[in-house]
């Protein structure tokens, strides 16, 4: 894999929230992708292609439901192998990252407790997260989400 591709994937990852970035950084997903590639007898360029697809997936650029087709088309496997690879990526890469992210969020809350008045406001608000941090307005958030979809 070229450094340029690595850089591009990292750029996308850097756009994610901090907790997601930390979770991804804490896990060697490239090595795990290579291991999976080996299991399915992927060679040289095919391995790089798989790493790129996994990178695009975890950085939120490509759609999860299109992952199987992407592997089949971009890596050049059979449909059956693409499905198996997809399942392994889920178990061996995505789940550990999600778990790691959950731990990081818990740790952050523990290390940086919200002021009591914010906690109280949250309890009294009935689940309004806007008291817990600087959140964008609903219009801005909506716009952002829709923009993200179009990427």
């Amino acid at each position, binding site marked *: 894999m070229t450094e340029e591709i690595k850089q591009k994937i990292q750029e996308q990852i850097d756009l994610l929230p901090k907790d997601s970035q930390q979770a991804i950084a804490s896990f060697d997903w490239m090595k795990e992708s290579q291991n999976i590639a080996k299991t399915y*007898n992927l060679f040289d360029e095919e391995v790089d292609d798989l790493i790129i697809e996994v990178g695009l997936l975890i950085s939120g*650029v490509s759609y*999860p439901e299109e992952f199987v087709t992407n592997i089949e*088309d971009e890596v050049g496997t059979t449909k059956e192998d693409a499905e198996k690879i997809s399942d392994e990526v*889920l178990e061996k890469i*995505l789940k550990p990252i*999600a778990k790691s*992210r959950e731990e990081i969020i818990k740790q952050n809350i523990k290390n940086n407790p919200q002021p009591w008045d914010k906690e109280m406001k949250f309890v009294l608000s*009935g689940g309004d997260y806007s008291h817990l941090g600087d959140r964008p307005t609903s219009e801005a958030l909506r716009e952002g989400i829709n923009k993200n979809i179009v990427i």
Partner: protein
Amino acid sequence: MTRTLSKILILVLMVGIFFAPVGASFEKKDNQIAFNVEVSTVNAQVGPGLANFWASSSGFDFECNILPGPGSVVGCIAEIIYGAVWWPISLLTSLSAKIMDFFIYYSTNSTSYSGSFVGKAWGAVRDIANIFFIIGLLYVAIETILGIGHNGKKMIASIIVVALLINFSLFFTEVVIDTSNILARVFYNNFQQVDKNDPNKVVTNEPTSISTNLVSIFNPQEIIQKENYTNNVGLFIFITLISAILMAFMIYIFLSVALLFVGRVAGLWVAMVFAPIAFASYTVPFEIPGLGHKKWWSDLLKQSFLAPIFIFFLYVILLFGDALKAIPLDIGKAQNGDANYLDKFIKVIVPFAIIFVLIQQAKKLAVEYSGTIGESFSKAGNFIAGAATGAVIGTYATVGRGTIGRIGNNVANSSWAKRWEANGWGGGQFRKAMGSVGSASFDARAGMKSAGLNAADLGKVKEGGFTKIRAENVKKRQEKAKALEVGEDEKLKQSLNKSEEDLQGLMRSYSDIIETTDKKIAAARENLKDARASGDQTKITIYSTQLDAFKAKKKAIKKGEDMKGKNIQYFDENQVVQYINDDFSNVNAGVDAQGNKRTIQQIEDNEIHHKKQEIQKENRNRKWTYADTTNSGFRNTMTVLGGGSWKGNREAANKIRMEAKIEKGDDHGGGGGASHSSPAPKPAASKPAAAGGSHGGGGH
């Protein structure tokens, strides 16, 4: 089983009384009970009802013809509707009117209660009742011996008095019944005797018919006249169908009233027969269940005075009908055209509706006075009448569901209605109303049932406190937001479905070649792995070229490319160069709006991808708009005024925006919201979710 038996009993009574002559009696003959039949019939004394009423309007000819020439198919339809729907219902109406007239007369006729079988049954019951006196005397004797009672003398006196009176119990009962019947006759005789063919013509030589008097108020036969519709067969069909519904309601009313009076006759027979037991019950210090004097008196008086009360109401309704005739219902004063017929129609419908409601009210009041037997007969009457009416109404209900219901359902599920609801301003109510129309049975029977309110119809009592209600409201709003998502029948989804179907169609058409290529790729990959393991350079070259060539072929299939001239070659097992020159340019499903070939890859990567995005975008827009509406000042004010929590609205709005999972369980803290550290949603097995980003992450 008991209900079935009671229905059979009612039917037997009705048929028996209706077809049997008055004055039928039981007699002992040759050691057997024989049923004596007298020749005189009530039929001669009640009017003809509506039997000849509709005859004047029979024999329509709308020039039915399905062949070229004079006449039309619409004429055939009109004649079929007239002959197959209207005519049978009109006959049933006449019959039910006759039945009602008959039973009102029969029930208020004193000879109906003078049958010898009543006297014989009463005598048998009286003999049984005498046992109570012996028991009563023994009771007083024992009480006196033991010195435990202080009312011995008083009780003996009452036993002797009752023992004497019991012999007159039938007489007393008949006095009460006759009194009520005489009173009923006072009102009954006020009904005019009208001509059997023209209810508006008063005569003196015809028997009295209550139904004819009632029907004369709205004259339904006036709207079915051929000359009115000579040039408008469509209007005739419409009027005929409406008229059939009207008659169905008439059947309902007539039969239910008839059954009320059957109940009276049976109730009074029972009261007469068991009078001795009721009198004897005065002597025992406990109430005899079902036959005690308190219940007996109550039933006797209620059943007896049901008749005068109800006939009095009918008389008042008749008088009211005269007032109705004076109301100018043809305000438009249309002189010709359809409006003229509609005026006539209104003149029938409005008085009928008023008469219908008044008779229902009269029946309700009369039932309150008729005791339990009358009530059960009335209910059975409603059941029988309802079955007859239901058959007619059910047919219309089917048509209603198929037409108006279908439109309602389509409107409720349309994109514009959902967007309107998301924006508030009555869109929710509109969609709800349309949804109700779509899910409505269009069965008037349901409405008629609900008119007889009972406790079960009043709805389920709300359980739980404020917290639970708030949680339920939050859940309800989340579900509503979910329901606003692009539905199956909307354009966006239909467009996506089309693309997916086209893709599947292409894949199916070329499944053989795709699968074969996949197998070749798998084999080449396996062989290459073995070759690399053995270090055999020749084989490595062979299988490398094979893997690349077959991968290129698969790509060409998906891209719909012609491989000629692309110089795709590989070595076969014998190291001979092979070329792949297949032409896959026809592997497509036409071209899209931009002129691009709709190949497998194009549909997979672009079409479906973009259409899914569009749907997701639309769903989010709707949900966010709905969330804003949910947490708006107006909605919060209305929620607080309705006893709800505005914070619940805020929680709901937040959960809708965050696409939080809808709580399934009952336990809810109310105000919890999504957890602080919600993990990424669990992705599907073969469709992994992204750890970050906007697609699958959520929560950040």
